[in-house]
């Protein structure tokens, strides 16, 4: 037995199954959601399909925004224009769907989604070609898109056919599973699963984890970053449409809060802001937690503005708990020689 063999045996002292260990944070987020849900049912015993429905419709835009942000951050970038792109998608759809039929509204949705992907891809191209840091490029873009949204629709208005608005609100099977939830799972799975299972998904995680190593493994960095931003743009456009479905009108300023909320959701959902680590499930569950907390506070009869306070405290606590893992791993920083 060689010395190296002995060392490897020593490495395998963990007894937790690997699947659990690798997805610990996602599972933790789910557990947190279950805990918050139990709390909700305790303070509001008559919790039923109607509440589930309003939770899903309320959380849908944030869930898409979180997925958009996660696809960028996993590849090592950051997108501050998610909210603004949502707003553009939202007002575009609201303005042009008004007084049109259901079919037209679906065509417009498709165009908006394509436009969103292109707008996201543009972030990636600019960041790659100019070598300006991602955070600066997307911050600038957030102003551009914020302005464009106001140019399209100066004040809240517009609308969409009822049939379109009810996509998210009906329920096919049981009233406990609203269509909005199915829509979210379906769209995210349809786009993400093929990518995740292909080399492109691997490359996306690789670029987020270590750009130099990925380059040496034969990954072309630029296209992968563009892909991640295009995904971000696509999901942001989904978020804009979801916003239209939940409010019924277009609003040029509605998107702005979603950038920071999305970042909160991915942090809570276990996506490392340094890139390369996390999943899309965590951020989606976190989006539901973040929507449920203010609702609970209203049920408790307290000022819903405490929601912000609770949310902030929760994020700090969760991230602190998550920070214990690498600490236990005992990796120490070194002075570069």
């Amino acid at each position, binding site marked *: 037995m060689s010395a190296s063999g002995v060392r490897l045996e020593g490495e395998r002292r963990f007894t937790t199954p690997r699947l659990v260990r690798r997805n610990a944070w996602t599972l933790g987020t789910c557990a947190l959601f279950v805990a918050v849900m139990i709390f909700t049912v305790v303070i509001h015993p008559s919790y039923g399909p109607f509440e589930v429905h309003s939770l899903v419709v309320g959380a849908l835009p944030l869930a898409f925004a979180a997925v958009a942000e996660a696809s960028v951050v996993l590849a090592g970038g950051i997108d501050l224009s998610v909210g603004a792109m949502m707003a553009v998608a939202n007002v575009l759809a609201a303005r042009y769907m008004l007084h049109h039929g259901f079919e037209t509204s679906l065509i417009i949705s498709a165009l908006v989604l394509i436009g969103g992907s292109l707008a996201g891809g543009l972030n990636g191209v600019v960041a790659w070609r100019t070598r300006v840091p991602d955070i600066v490029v997307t911050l600038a873009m957030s102003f551009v898109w914020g302005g464009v949204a106001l140019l399209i629709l100066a004040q809240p208005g517009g609308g969409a056919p009822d049939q379109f608005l009810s996509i998210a609100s009906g329920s096919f099977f049981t009233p406990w599973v609203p269509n909005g939830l199915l829509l979210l799972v379906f769209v995210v799975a349809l786009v993400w699963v093929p990518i995740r299972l292909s080399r492109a998904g691997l490359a996306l995680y690789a670029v987020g984890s270590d750009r130099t190593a990925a380059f040496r493994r034969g990954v072309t960095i630029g296209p992968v970053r563009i892909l991640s931003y295009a995904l971000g743009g696509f999901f942001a456009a989904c978020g804009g449409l979801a916003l239209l479905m939940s409010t019924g009108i277009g609003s040029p300023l509605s998107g702005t809060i979603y950038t920071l909320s999305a970042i909160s959701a991915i942090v809570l959902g276990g996506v490392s802001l340094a890139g390369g680590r996390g999943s899309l499930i965590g951020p989606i569950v976190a989006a539901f937690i973040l929507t449920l907390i203010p609702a609970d506070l209203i049920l408790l009869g307290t000022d819903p503005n405490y929601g912000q306070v609770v949310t902030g405290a929760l994020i700090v606590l969760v991230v602190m708990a998550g920070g214990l893992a690498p600490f236990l791993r005992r990796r*120490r920083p070194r002075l*570069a020689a």
Partner: protein
Amino acid sequence: MTDSAVLLETRGISKTYGAVVALRSGDLSVRAGEIHALMGANGAGKSTLVKVLTGDVAPNSGTILLDGKGVRFASPASARQAGLSSVYQDVSLVPLLTIAQNLRLSRIAMPEVRPWIEELELEHVDLNELARDVPTPILHLLDLAQALATLPRLLILDEVTATLPADLTERVFRVARRWRTEGRSVVLISHRMPEVQALCDRATVLRDGTTVGVVDLASSGQEEIVSLMLGEAAASVVVSEGAVADREPAPAVDRRPALEVRNLRSGKLKDVSFTLHRGEVLGLVALEGQGQADLFDCLSGNHSPEGGEIIVQGKPRKFRHPHDAIGAGLVLVPADRALALLPQRSVRENIALPMINSLRNWGLIRLGIERKRVRAAIDRLAIDTRSQSRVKQLSGGNQQKVTLARWLATGFTVLLCFDPTRGIDIRTKEQMYGVLRELAASGSAVLLFTSELPEIQLACDRAIVLFGGAVTAELAAHDATEAVLIRAAHGLVTGGGEVEAAS
């Protein structure tokens, strides 16, 4: 074998990073079916040449000929397609992916890599483990296995053996020999002279970014490589006037030890002991990665040692933070100026930074005294600036002087210099030597790690050599010629190396 065809040839490859010339003129010619060593001191340009060959960086000029045809590699992937595969000094597996995913990322099918995993005796490694969780030596071997899977015509091993224990090194060499018998080629970069002698057919030697010679290892050996690495400097050791080696040892005014290190262990440091007296400059020589970084980390309080004692002026000390080390009088001048300076702030603020603790008056910094002390330090080092300008705008040499000036103005017991003259011009270097000598004469102690061996005789009273995490030689400046130091640094211990300083 003289008839064997040349597989790869490079001519006049150069590469600069900003103002730093990493490679001036890299010439390399590798025959089919040979193991070719690439040698040179730290910073001679070996790794840069390899990075050019593997498409990791694009050269500024020069040509690469493969089978006599000019080629240019845009990325590691295209180099790999042309049959050049490399195992890098720093592991190049993506840390947050599993080994299996890393292989998929490189488009290497499991059946292709499987035989090599067996060849390297890695069957017991779990390929579904994250690369981050696999020990570094094993990662290096896995990296090698996946490089072999593409059956490269030229395999490049960039200091792979530096981090490997002996049994794993032997596995790498077995593969290299097999590669040679199959008519393929290997380029080996290694600092370990015996290894090169035993394994390689020829060696190309680089010095200061230029190829200075090719040695046939069958007919000649280590001595020739060493003399090539030294260059003309060996023939006529240019020791400028006032060099320590020619001088009488300073009168022993105060020979009390300023710093004693006893059995220090940390990272690569296995067991290091030495004493640094007041009024002397102690040189430290080591190849890359022999534990010098760990030693300076411990002494400057950057991290705590695993064992051993640090005794400052007779008192054992434990540092939990650089603040503790500075408080005890141990101050650091790192090689990388960016680690020490606030580039956006003024020279005055940079120099005054550590002083603010002692110059406060009810919380307010006493600017008058501060200005006076800063002025004195600037004058003493002849820093070429008005003290209001931003440090970022200074030349590298002047930036390094600012780091030094900071400690002159603040005061210290032991100055720890980690390769302080790296990448600065010759005139500033000489000024630095002068300042170090002056400091020693005024009773301070200086520990100077340097990658430029002539500096030992130019600035130091005594030198110690670190190899494999332990002190392997201690020499008086007079005996510390480059040839002796290079031999000692490569672990070739010369007889009578133990010479007590200033006896």
